[in-house]
């Protein structure tokens, strides 16, 4: 599978995750978000950027529980809870946010 952004083709797997994390850019993220019916706000970007930083440091997409805790530590307790994250990404912060961030599906996410 593949998606097209600004005339360039980006390969994805059968579930729509970007094949090459290094090809990611904000325009790709916007299209991936659109496909998930998500309108990217500043709060969304905050989570996406956090996920990318986490991946760069640890080479994994964190499980939701870990993501929630880590976001709470970095961005404050009002954001480090699953209600806040599910409001931003209704079909699961792990699944949807990782996809938009260009990361592989979180390890342990079925």
């Amino acid at each position, binding site marked *: 599978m593949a998606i097209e952004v600004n005339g360039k083709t980006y390969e994805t797997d059968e579930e729509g995750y970007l094949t090459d994390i290094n090809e990611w850019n904000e325009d790709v993220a916007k299209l991936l978000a659109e496909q998930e019916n998500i309108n990217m706000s500043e709060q969304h970007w905050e989570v996406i950027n956090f996920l990318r930083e986490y991946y760069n440091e640890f*080479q994994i997409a964190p499980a939701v529980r870990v993501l929630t805790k880590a976001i709470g530590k970095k961005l404050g307790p009002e954001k480090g809870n699953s209600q806040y994250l599910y409001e931003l990404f209704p079909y699961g912060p792990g699944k949807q946010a990782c996809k938009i961030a260009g990361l592989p599906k979180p390890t342990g996410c079925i």
Partner: protein
Amino acid sequence: MSEGQVKKFMYVNRKAPHGTIYALESLEVVLIAAAFDQDVSLAFMDDGVYQLKKGFNTKGIEVKNFQPTYRALDDYDINKLYVEQEALEARGLTQEDMCVPVEVLTRAEIGKLMETQDIVLSF
């Protein structure tokens, strides 16, 4: 799972990091199983201690460097990492060569810990 069902899991890692897929597979299973909130410990024995040798640079062999992921284990509340003393000595390694905080135990001590587990997973 309810509190009463917490079991003691030990993952025993005995293989060098890149020559076989065991090290990476073990790490992935550990991360997946962490979702079940069990009492997890990791033992590194024999060539398994090489998994934690600081300073992997896998650019040349063109495989993913999974060493940074060991540093994420703490986020997953996995912080009982045991390394076999005899294995370190036979390989010219010390605790300072390890990429994450570990407790160095003798084989016999690891053996005793093994006896206290509900489930032992071998890699």
